[in-house]
């Protein structure tokens, strides 16, 4: 099972643990499994079919460019970190 480091604000969802072991052949499966074990996690990590904007998934020390399709194995280490830049989005649709 991959070792997932939990972003500090989300550790409240995993009883304060810094990291957990979760199965998943892909990043998407891993997030779905995180959600099933620790409800509430998914919304902070994934929206529709991609990672939330401004978030980078770092897999074995490298920010993945394959997004949710990133393949994982049992020895994989996953971190969810702020993207190099990014930030919040306007909730409203395009401004007029």
């Amino acid at each position, binding site marked *: 099972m991959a070792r997932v*480091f939990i*972003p*500090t*604000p*989300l550790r409240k969802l995993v009883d304060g643990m*810094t990291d957990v072991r979760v199965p998943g052949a892909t990043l998407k499966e891993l997030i779905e499994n995180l959600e099933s074990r620790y409800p509430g996690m998914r919304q*902070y990590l994934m929206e529709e079919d991609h990672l939330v*904007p*401004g978030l980078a998934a*770092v897999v074995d*020390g*490298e*920010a993945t*460019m*394959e997004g949710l399709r990133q393949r994982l194995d049992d020895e994989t*280490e996953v*971190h969810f*970190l*702020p*993207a*190099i*830049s*990014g*930030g*919040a*989005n*306007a*909730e*409203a*649709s*395009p*401004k*007029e």
Partner: protein
Amino acid sequence: MTITDKPAQEYQVIGTRPIRPDGLEKVTGQAIYGADVRLPGMVHGTTLRSPHAHARIISIDTSKATAMPGVLAVITGADMPVAENATVDMGEEEANLNYASDKLMARSKVVYKGHPVAAVAAWDSNTAQEAAKLIEVEYGVLKPVINVDAALAPNAPIVHEDLVGDDLGEKVRSTNLAKHFRHEFGDVEAGFKASSIVIEREFNLATVHQGYIEPQNATALWQSDGRVTIWTSTQGSFGARRATAGVLNMSESKIKVVPCEIGGGFGGKIGIYLEPIAALLSKKCGRPVQLIMDRQSVFDATGPTPGAKVRIKLGADDSGKLLAGTADLRYEAGAYPGSAVGAGAMCVFAPYRIENTRIDGYDVVVNKPKSSAYRAPGATQSSYAMESVVDEVSEALRMDPLEFRLRNATREGDRRADGPEFQRIGNIEVQQAAKESPHWTSELERDGPDGRKRGRGVATGFWFNGGMRSSVNMSVNNDGTVSLIEGSVDIGGTRASISMQAAEALGLPAQDVRPTVVDTESVGYNDVTGGSRTTNASGHAAYNAAQEVIAKMTGRAALLWDLKPEDVEFAEGVFSAKADPELKMTFKEVAAKLNETGGPLNATGSIQARGGAGSFGTHIVDVEVDPDTGKVDIVRYTAVQDAGKAIHPAYVEGQMQGGAAQGIGWALNEEYFMNDQGIMDNSTFLDYRMPTSLDVPMIETIIVEVPNPNHPFGVRGVGETSIIPPVPAISNAIYDALGVRLRQTPMKPSRVLDALRDKQDSA
């Protein structure tokens, strides 16, 4: 000087210093920069920019401008397509398309001084500029917020009413806080409690600009079939294409971006500014339109690096072991979310093993131009504070500052404070090289002429160095030379560094591989030239293409000898039969037979490269300070950096020296001098004081080579680390000279004098 981690491999090309392939065009003025582009029927455009940093647009009347003779098209925000509210990866930065569009042309509100509100195309630029003056804009001026304290204060003016901030995972509204994140490991409170010394300090950094010589420019032709061609000065033609397509709400495949020669970028030319405006003006007037920024617009309305407020707290025990550290990083994003605070957090504690850490990062929207990448974006801000406090802690413990760093230095297998584990890194090797350097081991004459005081400082920096995507095409010519087609824009000598890797793999002299940088329709996808990734990733792609060339050429040689390809081997540019060593042909000899053995021989190389495994740099600086005027002079400077493998050592040294020179400017002179209305009062190169050759001594370099395990030649990338250490190293040297610590940039004469007066007063 070069120090290698292990005995140097026998390379024929790598490690040599050939003349750069693009040198002749550049020194003879033949290279084509964006402003040199001339097209049949081309007309000229300009933008009308807001004089206010924060204001509602009540009305825009373009009728007088439109009616002016010679004017061909006028556009406003109403002409901008509605962009998707989506984020695109630009390489070393991300862009939200909705905000990217709004940044290029305001619709209902201006949020930084210089924000475009309209654009004009006319037969000539003078007519365009005169017409722009006839556009009547009525503003409802609002109070601006121009630093993080003002932006986060209760009842602060709100830059974007629709911004939904993220405060540790909770949505917040009516705020200028775009994001607050935290990395936490261990128990910092326990770590501080166990420490015998705890020091906490706050630092402020001014906004500074990359200061590239060539202003932003774009020439666009919207063809009658709906396809658009754009000639521009960009660090990433594919990223510029993607962002332009997003803003114009059209398919990427309908846009061709032709990257011109680039007169500097340093991260500031990753984003787009003029491309969609030129395209829309071209669409409206049916002619190619060229826009070129003036220097004031470059300062006012492109992407400087964030101003920041940084607080660092460190605890250590008597043995000099760091036990705990906290960092509070508050970065100005500029007018739209997305500062480099994430990278600042990644780098702040990277050189040090600290078991208990907490980092809080804040991305704060203010009424300044949207910040952009600038050489190791975000790292200089956090490292200035960290390296200054490290200096204070080591002094308090009476330890040599480099000994203290070595005592706590990270190595392979350690974790950064944001979590990921280091691969093989050269942190210790770099610091050891600095400690043993002629500079550090020399005696410093403490008293300079006329009462001036001398001091020595040291600091370390880390940048992660990217990998990402690159593609090249390669074709073998009948004379045995090779054409190498690249999509990576060449800013710092990557034509040479990529083609040299191809030449090494092919066993050819460097000059026999001729590199050409082409447009987005002439080569496969390439990410931005940024993140210190290009020599690593594009060089790796060229290496892969060379392997394909070798395999195909092996087949041709086998055909000539009536052998199977597996019976032929290749080494150092020579094909030979395994069973008969006398049967040999050089690469050139096989190339001369291409037409007889199957015709043209081409190859491609593409890669989604792993990263550079991170690069550390340590700088040593001697300053001389005049206590009467406060002026600081740099009298000696040494930069030490892990390059992994220096492909072209002269360019590696150039990157180390260039980053150091920019860092010296950041430390001593440069700042956006903002008035309380959010207007930059020094938006010219006369008033925005960058160092010249008269301000900077010869910068000595020591290249350390600890190979990157992810790259065939060990390349790590070298473009960015060198800007991180100068600011804290100079601050530490000023302290060493005068006994005062400066915790605000720039450390200009008035601040030095203020610090000396404070010291005298407190005495």
